[in-house]
Protein backbone atom coordinates (compact mmCIF):
# COMPACT_ATOMS: atom_id res chain seq x y z
CA UNK A 1 0.00 0.00 0.00
CA UNK A 2 1.29 3.39 -0.99
CA UNK A 3 1.15 6.12 1.64
CA UNK A 4 0.79 9.76 0.69
CA UNK A 5 1.61 12.34 3.32
CA UNK A 6 -0.31 15.48 2.44
CA UNK A 7 -0.17 17.04 5.88
CA UNK A 8 0.53 20.75 5.98
CA UNK A 9 -1.17 21.20 2.60
CA UNK A 10 -4.45 22.99 2.05
CA UNK A 11 -7.11 22.41 -0.61
CA UNK A 12 -6.72 21.61 -3.42
CA UNK A 13 -3.10 20.47 -2.94
CA UNK A 14 -3.86 17.08 -1.25
CA UNK A 15 -6.21 16.11 -4.09
CA UNK A 16 -3.69 17.21 -6.71
CA UNK A 17 -0.89 15.28 -5.01
CA UNK A 18 -3.03 12.14 -4.85
CA UNK A 19 -4.04 12.60 -8.47
CA UNK A 20 -0.41 12.97 -9.58
CA UNK A 21 0.58 9.76 -7.79
CA UNK A 22 -2.24 7.76 -9.33
CA UNK A 23 -1.34 9.08 -12.77
CA UNK A 24 2.23 7.99 -12.32
CA UNK A 25 1.41 4.52 -11.10
CA UNK A 26 -1.97 2.76 -10.99
CA UNK A 27 -2.46 1.55 -7.44
CA UNK A 28 -4.79 -0.98 -5.91
CA UNK A 29 -4.55 0.48 -2.42
CA UNK A 30 -3.57 3.95 -1.32
CA UNK A 31 -3.52 5.70 2.02
CA UNK A 32 -3.57 9.48 2.17
CA UNK A 33 -2.82 11.39 5.37
CA UNK A 34 -4.03 14.96 5.75
CA UNK A 35 -4.33 17.32 8.69
CA UNK A 36 -7.82 18.71 8.29
CA UNK A 37 -11.35 17.42 7.78
CA UNK A 38 -11.98 19.45 4.63
CA UNK A 39 -9.02 17.86 2.84
CA UNK A 40 -10.13 14.45 4.08
CA UNK A 41 -13.55 14.88 2.49
CA UNK A 42 -12.06 16.19 -0.73
CA UNK A 43 -9.56 13.34 -1.07
CA UNK A 44 -12.33 10.88 -0.19
CA UNK A 45 -14.46 12.28 -2.97
CA UNK A 46 -11.60 12.25 -5.44
CA UNK A 47 -10.71 8.60 -4.72
CA UNK A 48 -14.36 7.61 -5.08
CA UNK A 49 -14.49 9.39 -8.42
CA UNK A 50 -11.52 7.23 -9.45
CA UNK A 51 -13.33 4.00 -8.56
CA UNK A 52 -11.86 3.38 -5.11
CA UNK A 53 -13.79 2.19 -2.09
CA UNK A 54 -12.75 4.34 0.81
CA UNK A 55 -12.51 4.21 4.58
CA UNK A 56 -11.99 7.36 6.65
CA UNK A 57 -10.35 7.55 10.05
CA UNK A 58 -8.92 9.99 12.56
CA UNK A 59 -5.49 9.04 13.89
CA UNK A 60 -4.46 11.44 16.63
CA UNK A 61 -4.27 14.84 14.98
CA UNK A 62 -4.27 13.35 11.50
CA UNK A 63 -7.10 12.44 9.18
CA UNK A 64 -6.64 9.45 6.91
CA UNK A 65 -8.33 8.06 3.85
CA UNK A 66 -7.65 4.51 2.72
CA UNK A 67 -8.76 3.73 -0.83
CA UNK A 68 -9.06 0.15 -2.03
CA UNK A 69 -9.78 -1.49 -5.36
CA UNK A 70 -8.68 1.46 -7.45
CA UNK A 71 -6.71 -0.73 -9.80
CA UNK A 72 -10.02 -1.89 -11.26
CA UNK A 73 -9.57 0.85 -13.80
CA UNK A 74 -6.09 -0.33 -14.72
CA UNK A 75 -5.26 -3.17 -17.05
CA UNK A 76 -4.48 -5.86 -14.48
CA UNK A 77 -8.08 -6.44 -13.51
CA UNK A 78 -9.88 -5.62 -16.70
CA UNK A 79 -11.75 -8.68 -17.84
CA UNK A 80 -9.75 -8.45 -21.05
CA UNK A 81 -11.02 -8.98 -24.57
CA UNK A 82 -10.02 -12.38 -23.32
CA UNK A 83 -11.56 -15.65 -24.17
CA UNK A 84 -13.24 -14.71 -27.39
CA UNK A 85 -13.24 -18.10 -29.01
CA UNK A 86 -10.18 -18.80 -31.12
CA UNK A 87 -8.31 -15.68 -29.98
CA UNK A 88 -5.45 -16.09 -27.58
CA UNK A 89 -3.92 -13.47 -25.35
CA UNK A 90 -0.30 -12.98 -26.23
CA UNK A 91 1.83 -10.78 -24.05
CA UNK A 92 5.08 -9.55 -25.54
CA UNK A 93 7.67 -8.32 -23.10
CA UNK A 94 10.56 -6.25 -24.40
CA UNK A 95 13.37 -5.99 -21.88
CA UNK A 96 15.62 -4.16 -24.32
CA UNK A 97 15.43 -1.65 -27.12
CA UNK A 98 17.55 -3.83 -29.41
CA UNK A 99 17.08 -7.39 -30.51
CA UNK A 100 19.65 -10.05 -29.69
CA UNK A 101 23.32 -9.79 -28.80
CA UNK A 102 26.31 -9.01 -30.97
CA UNK A 103 26.01 -5.91 -33.08
CA UNK A 104 24.06 -3.08 -31.40
CA UNK A 105 23.38 -1.21 -34.62
CA UNK A 106 21.90 -4.33 -36.14
CA UNK A 107 20.03 -5.00 -32.91
CA UNK A 108 18.31 -1.61 -33.13
CA UNK A 109 17.22 -2.17 -36.73
CA UNK A 110 15.90 -5.60 -35.87
CA UNK A 111 13.92 -4.24 -32.95
CA UNK A 112 12.26 -1.62 -35.12
CA UNK A 113 11.36 -4.27 -37.61
CA UNK A 114 10.13 -6.57 -34.85
CA UNK A 115 7.77 -3.97 -33.40
CA UNK A 116 6.43 -3.13 -36.87
CA UNK A 117 5.88 -6.76 -37.72
CA UNK A 118 4.14 -7.58 -34.44
CA UNK A 119 0.86 -6.53 -35.99
CA UNK A 120 0.90 -9.73 -37.97
CA UNK A 121 -0.19 -11.42 -34.76
CA UNK A 122 -3.56 -9.81 -35.38
CA UNK A 123 -6.05 -9.86 -32.50
CA UNK A 124 -3.87 -12.31 -30.58
CA UNK A 125 -1.51 -9.49 -29.63
CA UNK A 126 -2.91 -8.54 -26.26
CA UNK A 127 -0.35 -6.68 -24.22
CA UNK A 128 3.04 -5.15 -24.86
CA UNK A 129 5.18 -4.71 -21.77
CA UNK A 130 8.30 -2.56 -21.85
CA UNK A 131 10.89 -2.95 -19.09
CA UNK A 132 14.52 -2.00 -18.48
CA UNK A 133 16.04 -0.61 -21.73
CA UNK A 134 12.74 -1.52 -23.41
CA UNK A 135 11.09 1.63 -22.00
CA UNK A 136 13.26 3.66 -24.39
CA UNK A 137 10.98 2.46 -27.18
CA UNK A 138 8.14 4.52 -25.68
CA UNK A 139 9.82 7.88 -25.38
CA UNK A 140 10.00 10.81 -27.75
CA UNK A 141 12.42 10.22 -30.62
CA UNK A 142 11.93 6.46 -30.58
CA UNK A 143 11.99 4.95 -34.08
CA UNK A 144 8.85 2.94 -33.35
CA UNK A 145 6.86 5.57 -31.48
CA UNK A 146 4.22 5.98 -34.18
CA UNK A 147 3.84 2.20 -34.47
CA UNK A 148 3.33 1.87 -30.73
CA UNK A 149 0.83 4.70 -30.74
CA UNK A 150 -1.06 2.98 -33.54
CA UNK A 151 -1.13 -0.29 -31.54
CA UNK A 152 -2.49 1.57 -28.55
CA UNK A 153 -5.23 3.08 -30.68
CA UNK A 154 -6.21 -0.37 -31.81
CA UNK A 155 -6.77 -1.34 -28.19
CA UNK A 156 -3.53 -3.17 -27.43
CA UNK A 157 -2.46 -2.29 -23.91
CA UNK A 158 1.09 -1.02 -23.66
CA UNK A 159 2.52 -1.17 -20.15
CA UNK A 160 5.68 0.80 -19.45
CA UNK A 161 7.68 0.07 -16.32
CA UNK A 162 7.55 3.11 -14.00
CA UNK A 163 10.64 2.13 -12.01
CA UNK A 164 12.64 1.85 -15.24
CA UNK A 165 11.44 5.22 -16.56
CA UNK A 166 12.41 6.75 -13.26
CA UNK A 167 15.81 5.04 -13.32
CA UNK A 168 16.59 6.46 -16.75
CA UNK A 169 14.97 9.81 -15.79
CA UNK A 170 12.56 9.41 -18.71
CA UNK A 171 9.23 9.75 -16.85
CA UNK A 172 8.51 13.11 -18.45
CA UNK A 173 9.44 11.95 -21.92
CA UNK A 174 7.18 8.91 -22.23
CA UNK A 175 4.88 9.35 -25.24
CA UNK A 176 2.85 6.16 -25.27
CA UNK A 177 1.47 3.49 -22.94
CA UNK A 178 0.44 3.29 -19.32
CA UNK A 179 3.06 3.61 -16.62
CA UNK A 180 2.90 0.42 -14.66
CA UNK A 181 4.37 -1.55 -11.76
CA UNK A 182 5.61 -5.09 -11.20
CA UNK A 183 2.29 -6.29 -9.81
CA UNK A 184 0.57 -5.34 -13.06
CA UNK A 185 3.29 -7.05 -15.08
CA UNK A 186 3.11 -10.25 -13.03
CA UNK A 187 -0.69 -10.26 -13.20
CA UNK A 188 -0.56 -9.77 -16.95
CA UNK A 189 1.82 -12.74 -17.25
CA UNK A 190 -0.58 -14.87 -15.26
CA UNK A 191 -3.57 -13.88 -17.38
CA UNK A 192 -1.78 -14.26 -20.70
CA UNK A 193 -2.07 -17.43 -22.73
CA UNK A 194 1.45 -16.94 -23.98
CA UNK A 195 4.31 -14.69 -22.91
CA UNK A 196 7.02 -13.85 -25.40
CA UNK A 197 10.07 -12.23 -23.93
CA UNK A 198 12.64 -10.37 -26.03
Amino acid at each position, binding site marked *: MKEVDARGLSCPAPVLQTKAILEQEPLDTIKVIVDNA*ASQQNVDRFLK*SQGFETALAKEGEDFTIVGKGGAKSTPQMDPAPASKSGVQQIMVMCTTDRMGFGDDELGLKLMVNFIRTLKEMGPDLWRLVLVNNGVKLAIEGSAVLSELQAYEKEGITILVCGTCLEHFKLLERKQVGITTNMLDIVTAMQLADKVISI
Partner: protein
Amino acid sequence: MTFPTDENVLVGLDRADDAGVYRLSDDLALIQTVDFFTPIVDDPYWFGQIAAANALSDVYAMGGVPKTAMNLVGFPLKTMDISILRQIIQGGIDKMVEAQVVLVGGHSVEDSELKYGLSVTGFVHPERFLVKKNLKQGDALILTKPLGTGIINTAIKGGLASDELIERVTRLMAALNRSAAEVMAAYPVHACTDITGFGLLGHLAEMVCGSGHSLLVQSAKVPILPEASEYAAMGLVPAGAYHNKTFREHMVSFEASVDALMRDILFDPQTSGGLLISVAGERAEALVADLMAKGIDQAAVIGSVIADPSEKIFVQ
Protein backbone atom coordinates in the same frame (compact mmCIF):
# COMPACT_ATOMS: atom_id res chain seq x y z
CA MET B 1 -16.82 44.98 23.64
CA THR B 2 -18.83 48.19 23.34
CA PHE B 3 -18.54 50.40 20.30
CA PRO B 4 -18.83 54.17 20.26
CA THR B 5 -22.08 55.22 18.61
CA ASP B 6 -24.51 58.11 18.32
CA GLU B 7 -28.12 58.66 17.31
CA ASN B 8 -27.22 59.04 13.63
CA VAL B 9 -25.76 55.54 13.33
CA LEU B 10 -28.50 53.75 11.42
CA VAL B 11 -26.57 50.54 10.80
CA GLY B 12 -23.54 49.96 12.99
CA LEU B 13 -21.33 47.13 14.08
CA ASP B 14 -23.99 45.73 16.41
CA ARG B 15 -26.02 44.73 13.36
CA ALA B 16 -23.13 43.36 11.35
CA ASP B 17 -24.62 44.20 7.99
CA ASP B 18 -22.88 44.56 4.61
CA ALA B 19 -21.94 48.18 5.30
CA GLY B 20 -22.36 50.90 7.89
CA VAL B 21 -25.06 53.56 7.39
CA TYR B 22 -24.82 57.00 8.98
CA ARG B 23 -27.48 59.73 8.74
CA LEU B 24 -26.15 63.11 7.58
CA SER B 25 -29.50 64.84 7.25
CA ASP B 26 -33.18 63.94 7.02
CA ASP B 27 -32.81 62.97 3.39
CA LEU B 28 -29.24 61.77 3.12
CA ALA B 29 -27.27 58.95 4.72
CA LEU B 30 -23.70 57.83 4.19
CA ILE B 31 -22.87 54.18 3.39
CA GLN B 32 -19.34 53.04 4.19
CA THR B 33 -17.65 49.75 3.51
CA VAL B 34 -14.18 48.33 3.00
CA ASP B 35 -13.07 45.07 1.42
CA PHE B 36 -9.78 43.67 0.16
CA PHE B 37 -8.30 40.25 -0.52
CA THR B 38 -5.42 38.29 -2.00
CA PRO B 39 -5.48 37.41 -5.74
CA ILE B 40 -8.09 34.93 -6.92
CA VAL B 41 -7.09 35.02 -10.59
CA ASP B 42 -3.62 35.17 -12.17
CA ASP B 43 -4.30 38.15 -14.40
CA PRO B 44 -3.54 41.35 -12.43
CA TYR B 45 -5.88 43.57 -14.45
CA TRP B 46 -8.83 41.23 -13.89
CA PHE B 47 -7.93 40.80 -10.24
CA GLY B 48 -8.21 44.58 -9.91
CA GLN B 49 -11.63 44.55 -11.54
CA ILE B 50 -12.92 41.72 -9.37
CA ALA B 51 -11.63 43.27 -6.14
CA ALA B 52 -13.29 46.57 -7.02
CA ALA B 53 -16.60 44.94 -8.04
CA ASN B 54 -16.56 42.99 -4.79
CA ALA B 55 -15.97 46.10 -2.64
CA LEU B 56 -18.61 48.14 -4.46
CA SER B 57 -21.13 45.34 -4.08
CA ASP B 58 -21.71 46.02 -0.39
CA VAL B 59 -23.08 49.47 -1.20
CA TYR B 60 -25.43 48.02 -3.82
CA ALA B 61 -26.58 45.38 -1.33
CA MET B 62 -27.58 48.19 1.05
CA GLY B 63 -29.75 49.74 -1.69
CA GLY B 64 -27.33 52.65 -2.06
CA VAL B 65 -25.30 54.33 -4.78
CA PRO B 66 -21.48 54.29 -4.45
CA LYS B 67 -19.81 57.64 -5.14
CA THR B 68 -16.18 57.68 -3.99
CA ALA B 69 -13.52 55.09 -3.35
CA MET B 70 -9.98 54.78 -2.02
CA ASN B 71 -7.44 52.12 -2.94
CA LEU B 72 -6.07 49.76 -0.31
CA VAL B 73 -2.86 48.06 -1.40
CA GLY B 74 -0.47 45.59 0.16
CA PHE B 75 2.38 44.91 -2.27
CA PRO B 76 5.56 42.79 -2.09
CA LEU B 77 7.87 45.42 -3.61
CA LYS B 78 10.99 43.28 -3.21
CA THR B 79 9.73 40.27 -5.10
CA MET B 80 7.18 41.61 -7.57
CA ASP B 81 7.45 43.96 -10.51
CA ILE B 82 5.69 47.26 -9.90
CA SER B 83 4.03 47.04 -13.33
CA ILE B 84 1.80 44.32 -11.86
CA LEU B 85 0.47 46.80 -9.33
CA ARG B 86 -0.23 49.29 -12.11
CA GLN B 87 -2.32 46.71 -13.94
CA ILE B 88 -4.27 45.85 -10.80
CA ILE B 89 -5.05 49.49 -10.10
CA GLN B 90 -5.99 50.04 -13.74
CA GLY B 91 -8.48 47.18 -13.42
CA GLY B 92 -9.90 48.79 -10.28
CA ILE B 93 -10.16 52.19 -11.95
CA ASP B 94 -11.90 50.79 -15.02
CA LYS B 95 -14.47 49.14 -12.76
CA MET B 96 -14.96 52.42 -10.87
CA VAL B 97 -15.49 54.27 -14.16
CA GLU B 98 -18.11 51.70 -15.11
CA ALA B 99 -19.80 52.24 -11.73
CA GLN B 100 -19.48 56.05 -12.04
CA VAL B 101 -17.43 56.11 -8.86
CA VAL B 102 -14.44 58.42 -8.42
CA LEU B 103 -11.12 57.44 -6.91
CA VAL B 104 -10.15 60.06 -4.35
CA GLY B 105 -7.15 58.54 -2.61
CA GLY B 106 -5.66 55.44 -1.13
CA HIS B 107 -2.93 53.90 0.92
CA SER B 108 -0.24 51.30 0.19
CA VAL B 109 1.97 49.28 2.48
CA GLU B 110 4.72 46.82 1.73
CA ASP B 111 3.40 43.36 2.41
CA SER B 112 4.75 39.84 1.94
CA GLU B 113 1.53 38.92 0.14
CA LEU B 114 -0.25 40.95 -2.51
CA LYS B 115 -3.59 42.43 -1.41
CA TYR B 116 -5.95 44.84 -3.10
CA GLY B 117 -9.34 46.28 -2.40
CA LEU B 118 -11.30 49.46 -1.84
CA SER B 119 -12.83 51.54 0.83
CA VAL B 120 -16.10 52.75 -0.69
CA THR B 121 -18.47 55.54 0.27
CA GLY B 122 -21.99 55.75 -1.07
CA PHE B 123 -25.28 57.46 -0.38
CA VAL B 124 -28.83 56.38 0.35
CA HIS B 125 -32.00 57.92 1.70
CA PRO B 126 -31.98 57.35 5.48
CA GLU B 127 -35.39 55.69 5.31
CA ARG B 128 -34.77 53.58 2.26
CA PHE B 129 -31.65 51.54 2.88
CA LEU B 130 -31.83 47.74 2.81
CA VAL B 131 -30.58 45.45 5.55
CA LYS B 132 -30.19 41.69 5.74
CA LYS B 133 -32.51 41.11 8.62
CA ASN B 134 -35.92 42.25 7.49
CA LEU B 135 -37.51 39.18 5.91
CA LYS B 136 -41.29 39.25 5.59
CA GLN B 137 -43.49 36.22 5.45
CA GLY B 138 -44.54 35.55 1.88
CA ASP B 139 -41.39 37.08 0.42
CA ALA B 140 -39.68 35.34 -2.46
CA LEU B 141 -35.89 34.98 -2.52
CA ILE B 142 -34.06 35.96 -5.69
CA LEU B 143 -30.41 35.30 -6.52
CA THR B 144 -28.78 37.29 -9.34
CA LYS B 145 -25.53 35.39 -10.09
CA PRO B 146 -24.89 31.64 -10.36
CA LEU B 147 -23.03 29.82 -7.56
CA GLY B 148 -19.83 27.79 -7.85
CA THR B 149 -17.05 30.36 -8.13
CA GLY B 150 -15.31 29.06 -4.97
CA ILE B 151 -15.12 25.51 -6.31
CA ILE B 152 -14.05 26.68 -9.75
CA ASN B 153 -11.39 28.99 -8.27
CA THR B 154 -10.06 25.92 -6.45
CA ALA B 155 -9.89 24.08 -9.78
CA ILE B 156 -8.13 27.09 -11.33
CA LYS B 157 -5.60 27.05 -8.47
CA GLY B 158 -5.03 23.37 -9.21
CA GLY B 159 -4.45 24.09 -12.89
CA LEU B 160 -7.47 22.02 -13.91
CA ALA B 161 -9.75 24.63 -15.45
CA SER B 162 -9.83 25.44 -19.16
CA ASP B 163 -8.98 28.93 -20.40
CA GLU B 164 -12.54 29.34 -21.56
CA LEU B 165 -13.90 28.54 -18.10
CA ILE B 166 -11.37 30.84 -16.40
CA GLU B 167 -12.47 33.69 -18.61
CA ARG B 168 -16.17 33.03 -18.08
CA VAL B 169 -15.84 32.87 -14.28
CA THR B 170 -13.55 35.91 -14.23
CA ARG B 171 -16.11 37.97 -16.09
CA LEU B 172 -18.84 36.73 -13.78
CA MET B 173 -16.87 37.76 -10.68
CA ALA B 174 -15.99 41.12 -12.20
CA ALA B 175 -19.61 41.90 -13.07
CA LEU B 176 -21.00 44.76 -10.98
CA ASN B 177 -24.18 44.29 -8.99
CA ARG B 178 -25.13 47.78 -10.08
CA SER B 179 -27.86 46.96 -12.60
CA ALA B 180 -29.43 44.49 -10.21
CA ALA B 181 -29.49 47.16 -7.49
CA GLU B 182 -31.00 49.72 -9.86
CA VAL B 183 -33.70 47.32 -11.00
CA MET B 184 -34.69 46.23 -7.50
CA ALA B 185 -35.10 49.85 -6.35
CA ALA B 186 -38.49 49.97 -8.06
CA TYR B 187 -39.77 46.88 -6.22
CA PRO B 188 -41.05 46.19 -2.70
CA VAL B 189 -37.75 44.68 -1.53
CA HIS B 190 -37.66 43.98 2.21
CA ALA B 191 -34.14 42.66 2.70
CA CYS B 192 -30.98 42.24 0.66
CA THR B 193 -27.40 41.08 0.96
CA ASP B 194 -24.67 39.98 -1.43
CA ILE B 195 -23.27 36.45 -1.54
CA THR B 196 -19.64 36.21 -0.56
CA GLY B 197 -17.55 34.03 1.72
CA PHE B 198 -20.33 32.35 3.69
CA GLY B 199 -21.95 30.83 0.60
CA LEU B 200 -25.66 30.98 -0.21
CA LEU B 201 -26.78 29.03 2.85
CA GLY B 202 -24.43 30.96 5.16
CA HIS B 203 -25.88 34.27 4.03
CA LEU B 204 -29.44 32.94 4.19
CA ALA B 205 -28.67 31.80 7.75
CA GLU B 206 -27.65 35.35 8.65
CA MET B 207 -30.89 36.68 7.18
CA VAL B 208 -33.14 34.21 8.93
CA CYS B 209 -31.53 34.48 12.40
CA GLY B 210 -33.84 36.55 14.57
CA SER B 211 -36.46 36.92 11.82
CA GLY B 212 -39.11 34.73 13.43
CA HIS B 213 -39.60 33.04 10.05
CA SER B 214 -38.04 30.16 8.15
CA LEU B 215 -36.85 29.75 4.59
CA LEU B 216 -37.59 27.25 1.89
CA VAL B 217 -34.90 26.84 -0.77
CA GLN B 218 -35.60 24.90 -3.97
CA SER B 219 -32.15 23.69 -4.91
CA ALA B 220 -33.19 22.80 -8.47
CA LYS B 221 -33.96 26.47 -9.10
CA VAL B 222 -30.66 27.84 -7.78
CA PRO B 223 -28.50 29.05 -10.68
CA ILE B 224 -25.21 27.13 -10.67
CA LEU B 225 -22.16 27.17 -12.91
CA PRO B 226 -22.39 23.76 -14.63
CA GLU B 227 -18.70 22.92 -14.05
CA ALA B 228 -19.06 23.33 -10.28
CA SER B 229 -20.69 19.92 -9.77
CA GLU B 230 -18.03 18.21 -11.84
CA TYR B 231 -15.18 19.73 -9.83
CA ALA B 232 -16.99 19.17 -6.52
CA ALA B 233 -17.21 15.48 -7.43
CA MET B 234 -13.43 15.48 -7.96
CA GLY B 235 -12.88 16.80 -4.46
CA LEU B 236 -12.07 20.38 -5.40
CA VAL B 237 -14.25 21.95 -2.74
CA PRO B 238 -12.54 24.83 -0.94
CA ALA B 239 -11.99 24.40 2.80
CA GLY B 240 -14.22 27.45 3.29
CA ALA B 241 -17.25 25.50 2.08
CA TYR B 242 -16.65 22.85 4.73
CA HIS B 243 -16.24 25.50 7.40
CA ASN B 244 -19.46 27.20 6.28
CA LYS B 245 -21.23 23.86 6.43
CA THR B 246 -19.90 22.96 9.88
CA PHE B 247 -20.85 26.38 11.20
CA ARG B 248 -24.42 26.53 9.86
CA GLU B 249 -25.46 22.91 9.32
CA HIS B 250 -27.58 22.87 12.48
CA MET B 251 -29.86 25.50 10.94
CA VAL B 252 -30.35 23.67 7.67
CA SER B 253 -32.64 20.76 7.00
CA PHE B 254 -31.89 19.02 3.71
CA GLU B 255 -34.39 16.78 2.02
CA ALA B 256 -32.80 13.39 1.29
CA SER B 257 -32.99 14.06 -2.46
CA VAL B 258 -30.48 16.93 -2.19
CA ASP B 259 -27.15 15.20 -2.89
CA ALA B 260 -23.83 15.89 -1.20
CA LEU B 261 -22.44 17.83 -4.17
CA MET B 262 -25.41 20.19 -4.21
CA ARG B 263 -25.04 20.71 -0.45
CA ASP B 264 -21.42 21.74 -0.92
CA ILE B 265 -22.30 24.09 -3.76
CA LEU B 266 -24.95 25.76 -1.60
CA PHE B 267 -22.23 26.37 1.02
CA ASP B 268 -19.52 27.27 -1.52
CA PRO B 269 -17.85 30.60 -0.64
CA GLN B 270 -18.34 33.07 -3.48
CA THR B 271 -16.08 35.85 -4.67
CA SER B 272 -18.05 38.91 -5.69
CA GLY B 273 -21.28 36.90 -5.81
CA GLY B 274 -24.72 38.11 -6.74
CA LEU B 275 -27.37 39.91 -4.74
CA LEU B 276 -29.77 37.88 -2.64
CA ILE B 277 -33.04 39.77 -2.64
CA SER B 278 -36.10 39.18 -0.45
CA VAL B 279 -39.05 40.76 -2.28
CA ALA B 280 -42.82 40.62 -1.78
CA GLY B 281 -43.78 37.28 -3.33
CA GLU B 282 -46.39 38.62 -5.75
CA ARG B 283 -43.82 40.89 -7.42
CA ALA B 284 -41.02 38.35 -7.64
CA GLU B 285 -41.63 37.10 -11.17
CA ALA B 286 -41.85 40.66 -12.47
CA LEU B 287 -38.57 41.54 -10.78
CA VAL B 288 -36.83 38.51 -12.29
CA ALA B 289 -38.17 39.39 -15.73
CA ASP B 290 -36.92 42.94 -15.28
CA LEU B 291 -33.48 41.71 -14.17
CA MET B 292 -33.26 39.43 -17.18
CA ALA B 293 -34.21 42.27 -19.49
CA LYS B 294 -31.22 44.18 -18.07
CA GLY B 295 -28.86 41.34 -19.00
CA ILE B 296 -28.81 39.65 -15.59
CA ASP B 297 -29.91 36.52 -17.34
CA GLN B 298 -29.21 33.96 -14.62
CA ALA B 299 -31.41 35.69 -12.03
CA ALA B 300 -33.95 33.31 -10.52
CA VAL B 301 -36.44 32.88 -7.71
CA ILE B 302 -34.78 30.27 -5.53
CA GLY B 303 -37.08 30.04 -2.54
CA SER B 304 -39.40 31.82 -0.16
CA VAL B 305 -39.96 33.03 3.40
CA ILE B 306 -42.38 30.69 5.15
CA ALA B 307 -44.48 30.85 8.31
CA ASP B 308 -42.42 28.74 10.65
CA PRO B 309 -40.95 30.44 13.71
CA SER B 310 -38.09 27.91 14.05
CA GLU B 311 -35.75 30.11 11.94
CA LYS B 312 -34.53 27.15 9.90
CA ILE B 313 -33.66 26.73 6.26
CA PHE B 314 -35.42 23.87 4.52
CA VAL B 315 -33.69 22.79 1.33
CA GLN B 316 -35.54 20.58 -1.13
